């Protein structure tokens, strides 16, 4: 792993921690009460009184998620048309790009649906990424690669998703579990950033 990849991992971890905090605070505190602060001008006070801060926090998460997915999807499609198109098996870049663009659009379109659906979607994505980690780890194990950390990450993500799904009817609990999973993923990124990696020498 290069130093830039390590920095990227740490930045991703910080972003995940930030998102977890935004979601948790929006669910814990009654920000509408801030409208009673006498120094506020009437327009701002009215906005704070009527705003749905929970919904805003979900929208922030979905917006960031869709921007990341969109950027990744566009990058993959650009890579396919400029380079991978001429590579054996390069079409997988195109499929990956289309899949991520789709997910970006779905994430963006979820801005104005009920909270339960948003949470169900986010939990579904968490379970999906956990399953990918588990399959990846099993593949890595077959070929004597690094698999333990990946397997652990996959199993824990699925466990979080399952647990959150059970609490889908109580959104506050569900959000806290989701926040915990974000913090856990942040921790994994930090561990990855500081992990030593082996490689095959070429001479």
């Amino acid at each position, binding site marked *: *792993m290069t*130093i830039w990849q390590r920095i990227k991992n740490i930045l991703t971890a910080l972003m995940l921690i930030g998102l977890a905090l935004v979601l948790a605070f929006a669910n814990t505190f009654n920000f509408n009460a801030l409208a009673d602060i006498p120094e506020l001008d009437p327009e701002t006070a009215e906005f704070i009184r009527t705003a749905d801060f929970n919904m805003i926090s979900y929208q922030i998460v979905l917006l960031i998620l869709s921007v990341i997915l969109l950027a990744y999807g566009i990058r993959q499609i650009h890579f396919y048309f400029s*380079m991978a198109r001429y590579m*054996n098996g390069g079409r997988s870049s195109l499929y990956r790009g289309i899949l991520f663009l789709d997910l970006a659009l779905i994430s963006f379109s979820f801005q104005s649906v009920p909270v339960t659906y948003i949470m169900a979607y986010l939990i579904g994505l968490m379970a999906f990424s956990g399953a990918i980690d588990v399959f990846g780890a099993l593949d890595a194990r077959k070929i004597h690669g690094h698999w333990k950390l990946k397997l652990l990450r996959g199993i824990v993500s699925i466990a979080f998703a399952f647990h959150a799904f059970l609490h889908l009817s109580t959104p506050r609990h569900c959000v806290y579990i989701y926040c915990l999973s974000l913090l856990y993923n942040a921790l994994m990124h930090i561990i990855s950033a500081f992990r030593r990696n082996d490689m*095959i020498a070429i001479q």
Partner: protein
Amino acid sequence: MNSDFHYYATYCAAAIAEYTHEEALDICYCAQLVDHCTRTLLKKLHAPVSAATTQMQSELIDARTDIIGLQNITRIWASFHFLPRDLYAEPGRGSRRYKRKYRLICGPNGDLLVKTVKLAKDNTLQAVGIAMHVLADTWAHTYFAGTPSLVINNTDRDFYELIPDGEYYKRRHIVFGHNPAAKEDPETGAYTASVYQSSENSIMNLGHGRAGHLPDYSFIRYLYMPAWSNYEEILKDNPHDYLHAFAQMVYAMQYLRGEIPDFEPGNYAWEAIEPYRSTIENLLAVRRTDDSEDWKALGESITGETIRPFNLEEYQEEYINDHDGYKYDTFLGEFFKAATAQKTMVTEEIAKSGSRLAGSARDVKKSSKLISMEDGK
């Protein structure tokens, strides 16, 4: 290629080309040193880091893969281990970026090989040793490029070893492991390669990492589909290629000694190696990962002298302790000079072809301390 070929086989080739025992030892020492002369070693010796001819695993792991980092990597690997065969090749498809990477695919008998050998003409034995390393690797590393590239260097599951079975060959599917500590075993087909990384510029996609050490084994024949081959299978016949590499080394060294007026690609010293040909063919065919003992025995039988084993530290003290201002003329000083010249030549040629993948010759010199070296500081 490993030390068996770069050290002992190069000694044999030099001896057949009628270099003396001591000269042959210097040549093969330098040919082998190319695989050890890292930035880390150069820093330890207070030598110019621009003379690096290879990179350690630890250096590669932390290597930057932005444009500057890629240029550093490409300068080293394309100049010394994956000499491009044709910098003006037309793949007939793909973007300019794809074409530039495609043109770095290594192969024997290219224009750059001629320039490499001619650069060593009337030059030091160190330059001859470096040229022989580069020449030999053009045969072993054919079809891979000395720059990180998924679209060029990737391999897939269609990877088979051809094992002699009577008059024919049987195919054995190769499934690469990825544990660098695992021992390779030609008998069971346990081979190790770098992990698949979908990132184009991942260091895992440098050179023949995705085919593991297979290009470095003289006995192996393998059938696979390189990423750039448009779904065509390619057979790599190492016993054939290694024999050609050996015969071409002898031919090149005959030219460098002035016995042949010109070095032309595609020519080999078949006549000179004829007395040893069957011995060489037999030792190349043995299924093992190191042929050093047999090459050593052959070399000693040619010159009647003992070939001392490669010792990385042999000339280091001389270089470190030379405070009289003549570091540049020490054994290692001459090696660094020749390595820098080779790197500058290849970088310039790549830049001339319109590609910035290796940077420019100015970039080689930028990090160099040749001026202070000449002053002996």
